[in-house]
Every structure is written in C-alpha cells, then in structure tokens.
C-alpha cells in the first residue's frame, strides 16, 4: 500500500513541471474578513434566510418566552418522544425539567461500538418525534446553523427525527462562514463532525419538484435566545 502511495506521489511530482495551470500563483493572498456584525441586523438577516429556506425562526426575548416557543414547536410536531442533548450542552437549562413537567419522554442518543447493539439502539432512536439541540453558531448571510459533535452533543439528534428544534444564543451569530472560521480556527479539532444546516432536508430530484424531509428533518425550528 505504501508502494502505491510512493508511486502515485512520484507520478504527481513528475507531472507538475509540465502542468499548464493558468492563474496559478505561489500564494493565495490573505483577505480581509469582517468578524463581527451588528447584532440586530444579523438577527433579522438570519431569521429572513431561515424562513426563505422553509424553516421557522423565532426570536425569544427571555427564558419564559423561549420555553413557550419550544413547547409550541413540540405541539406542532405532535411529539411524544423527544431526543435531546444533555441539559449542560443546551443554552436553556430548564429543557429537561420542562419536558418532564409536560409529559414528554426524553431520550438521549448514545450509540455503541458493538455492531449488533448499535443497530438495536439506532432502531429505538428512530422512533423520536423531535430533536432538541443547541448550536455552536448561526451564519447571518445564509441562515445556516453550525453544530459540532461534543461528548454528549450527538449528531443524530438533528438528523433522525422529523422535527429539529435548535436553540441559538444571539451572541453566536456571525456574518459569514468565513467569519465563523476566523473566530474558530480550531473548530475541526473540537469534534469529528461539524455540520452546517441550512433549512430542512430537501430534494428536487423528481420533475424538479421541491419536496422537504427526504432523509433528514422535514421541519426546522430555530429559537434565537436574544438575551444571551
């Protein structure tokens, strides 16, 4: 296998002197990136983009407000079983308590390394009706959320259920993806999976007809926590 690697690298090195690569330069010039934006502008832009993507974005001005929006979303989803991150990983500490008080069954995503156990666990998680996550960031120009895996911040929570509810602290809004990367240069070392989510899952494969919820969530609800 290492032979193959050496052979391929040799071929590439041999090809490079003859390569006709128009526009190639020795370096890529650095660019100016505006890291911060005006918060109110970013909130309204983010909200507009999420709505345009077919998601739903609401702004909560205090905790009670946010809890009310959360419960409303769960009712909309006709939810019974709710998949969530741990309380410590959510920007609202009362999520667990709220779910319990309102009679929802809360489940957590933990997937074993054993192949057989894994399949049974996945089948159980599949029954969840909604998933509640936080978010590492929101991108104001595109309406995308950034989620990165952490010990208890499972990726399946935002993927398996038909509805994904994301709690986003307003302070985590960035104007662009480039601004987000500039502020989090080591983000890929924090967890193995970073995903940008821009709206609910969609396809237009059949006759170019837009359909939502093909493999991922059909509904995306973002609650911006304005005071955080």
């Amino acid at each position, binding site marked *: 296998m290492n032979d193959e*690697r050496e*052979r*391929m*690298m040799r*071929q*590439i090195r*041999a*090809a*490079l002197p*003859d*390569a*006709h*690569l*128009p*526009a*190639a*330069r020795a370096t*890529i010039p650095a660019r100016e*990136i505006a890291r911060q934006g005006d918060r109110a502008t970013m909130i309204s832009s983010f909200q507009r983009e999420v709505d345009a993507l077919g998601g739903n974005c609401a702004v909560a001005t205090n905790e009670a407000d946010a809890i009310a929006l959360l419960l409303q979303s769960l009712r909309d989803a006709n939810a019974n079983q709710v998949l969530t991150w741990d309380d410590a990983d959510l920007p609202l500490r009362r999520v667990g308590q709220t779910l319990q008080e309102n009679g929802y069954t809360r489940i*957590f995503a*933990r*997937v074993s*390394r054993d*192949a057989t156990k*894994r*399949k049974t666990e996945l*089948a159980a998680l*599949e029954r969840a009706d909604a998933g509640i996550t936080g978010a590492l960031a929101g991108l104001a120009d595109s309406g*995308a959320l950034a989620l990165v*895996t*952490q*010990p208890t911040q499972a*990726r*399946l929570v935002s*993927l398996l259920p038909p509805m994904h509810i994301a709690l986003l602290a307003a302070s985590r809004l960035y104007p*662009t*993806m480039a601004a987000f*990367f*500039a502020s989090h*240069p080591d983000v*890929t070392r924090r967890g*193995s*999976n*970073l995903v*940008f*989510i*821009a*709206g*609910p899952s*969609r*396809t237009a*494969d*059949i*006759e*170019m007809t837009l*359909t939502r919820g*093909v*493999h*991922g*969530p059909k509904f995306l609800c973002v609650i911006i926590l304005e005071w955080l």
Partner: protein
Amino acid sequence: MNNPNSAFHDRAAVALRDRTLRTALDRATLRFQELRASAFADFADADAARDRARLIRAHTLSRLDTYLEQFATNVERAGGRIHFASDAAALNRIVIAIARAHQAQSVVKGKSMLSEEVELNHALEAQGIRVLETDLGEYIAQLADERPSHIVAPIFHKTREQVAALLHEKIGMPLTDDVAEMTAAARRVLRSEFLNADLGISGVNFGVAATGSICLVENEGNGRLTTTAPRVHIALMGIERLVPTLDDLAAMLQVLARSATGQKLAVYTNIITGPRQTFEADGPDELHVILLDNGRSKTLGSAVAEILYCIRCGACLNACPVYREIGGHAYGSVYSGPVGAVLTPALNGIAAWSELPQASTLCGACRQVCPVRIDIPRLLVMERDAAARAGEMSRGWRWGLRGYAFMATRPALFRLAVWSARLGSRWLSRFNHGWIKKAPPPLNAWTATRDLPAFASQSFRAQWRAHQARSGATSEARK
C-alpha cells in the same frame, strides 16, 4: 459500462428523437439556469468570489504533492486511515478488503460521481455485497438500472409517472402522482437500510489539507446518515479535490451551491475530521479516505490540466446548447456535458473518446458560467488537437484539412478559392434568397439538416480595403 466513440452519433440521434427526454431537458436546464442566474444576481461580490475560487484551485494544483502529503498526514493524525489507489481496480480492491474485514453484507452509499467512475457497485455486488444508493435520484436510477444523466439532478429525464410506476413495481408503493408521497415512500425504505447498514460510502467535495477534514455537500440528509449511522465510513476522493485551509473551503462553498442549484449554501455541509472521538456519543468508529488517481496525474501533466479545477457544480451542462439537446446519456461516459467532453478523454485516453470534444459549437457559454472560470472551449480545442495527432480522425477530414492548409498558406490560391466559392454558393442559392437548401457532397452533411448561407457578394478583404480607403479619405479631409 463506458460506451466510447463509435456509438456517440447513434446515441445522440436516439436522444434527439426522444420527445419526453427533450421536454424534461428543456424544463430542467432552463430552471437550473434561472436559479443560478438569480443566485448570482443577488451576490454582490460574485466576480471577486469566482476569481478567488479559481486562484485557490490553480494554486492548490500547482503544489498538489505538498498539499496531498499534508492532507494525508492530517487525516491520520485525526484517527482516519488514508489509502492511495492509482486506478479503478485498486480502489475497488481496497473497498472490498475493508468490507471483508468487517464482514459487511450491506452498504449504503451517498452520491459519488467517483464511485460511478470506478464502477464500484458492480465490483461490490460481484462479491455478494448489497449496495444501495441513497440519494433519492440515484436510488431511483439504481432501481431503473440506469446511470445518472446529470451531475446534480440524476433522474431529471424521468417523468413523475415513470417514477411512480417504478416505485410501485420495486418497493410496492401504492400508485400516486404526488411527488411528496413518492419521496415519503422512498424515505421509509431507505431509513431502515441506513440503520442496518454495515458500511457507509460517500464521495468528497473538498479535502482540507491543513486540518485533514473532508467536506461533503448535500441537500437530502442521506450524506449525513451514510456518514453517521454505519460503524465504518469510507470516503472516496479524487486526488485533485483539495483546498489548503478552512478559509479556502469557505471561499469555494460560496460559489459551489450557487452555481449548482442557486442556493447560497447546500442544506447540509458536512465537515468530517476523523472517525468519532473517544467520548463522542455517535458517528462511525472507523474512517477510511481513499485517494484515487485513475488518470488525474496524467491529466495534470497535460495541456488540459485546467479541467482539474472543476468542482462538479453542473452549471456548464445546463448552459451547453449541445447538452440541452441530447442530455447526459448520449455522452456515454460518467461525466457528460462540456466538462465531460474534456475530462473523459483526458482521464481515459483520447483514442476511444475522440468524438466527445467534437460535441460542442465552442460557443463559450460553459466558460461564462463556470464558477472557477475554466476555459473549456480552449480545452476542447486541445483535445481535438490531441485526437488529430493520435490519428483519430477520418481520412476525409485529414485530407480535407491538409488541402485547406495548403490553400490557406498560398494567398493567390486562397483568393481564387474564395472567389469560386462565392460564385458557386450564389449559384446554388439563386432561388432561395441567399440560402443553400441542397449542396453537393461533402457539404450535403450540413444541408441535410439545415440551410447554409451563401457567401457575401463582397469578400471580407474587399470590404476591409473599401473601409480603409473611406476612412483614409476622411482623415485626409480632416487635415
């Protein structure tokens, strides 16, 4: 499954007679063009963004050896395993070995042009391993036993009735003409496949050298499921698909989705760095990244290296007047449209594919929409040149062009030829207001399908001389 040369004209002719296909082609390609145009109309720094994207691709390829080493090291540092495959057979061997080591029986696959290129499904199925495509369009193409006909929209050539009949027959869906119901039926079947699969195979849009990350762009969520649910994730990647840093990745993503589907960003942009870490709650326990050459290093050292800048957005397909008439299948190769007409002969050798670079009017629409501004018309001409040098040209063409060269390098002879062509063409068009309806061989190849305009009554050189004389007279008069 690759169908070179000989049959290209036959396939094109079949496509041209297929009314359903042509209606679908019109609808899809026009829609994609509108979506792209409106995305770029709202994009303030579009030109600068495209220039930067081009620069990033050009720079990366000019130091491909360095970035590949860096990428491979960082994939391993993150706990992933890196494999090098110099051709299709090598890649398939590596995948089969991984599948065997895990006693894998079922595989779910995200969209990957590269897996089509190496015909991975056949290789796995020959080993008794079940492979399921999970992108909705690719899944339907697989059920129909067809190859995708467009980079972005694999089954746009099928009507909803055809899709409904297929899903009815293959997975027992009740007949419907509701696209949402069809999608829901496919979701149900594929969901249980995801959760029970032993292996997930995905493509890669970009690899990030500085972090060892792979970036996978998709709208459906099948990419996320493929790379999350199974214990083992195998990512297939062409050696040219690198960018140096995360910032460069952000710059590429700014132009990719806008060019492909008119979106600012795809719904899911996955950036995967290694397998799940020790304390992570879910994700694959193993990540294998396989780097494929399969003609790419040869292309890098050739006159058409610029085609490796391509980021597979499909914009050139939608813009191409030839693709818009004949569709993807007529090209006979995995990569169709203008990019395919350059890439296919570059990767596989011109001998079997010399017809593809001819399938273009060199109008330049592809270059105009390309997010990394690849000069595709120039590359098509280079491939035609390669075909001629390789002797892949009919005797008629070769002698015709030799005759033309002989004449065009001798002014007196050239003038005589133009003069007689003018007389002849005016004679042939004398009843049709300057249009020739029927010409003698070999020109009848043209007039069989369209009219040919007669030569102007005055040659360009004569008009130019007259023009110069007039303007000379005016400037004299001004003095």
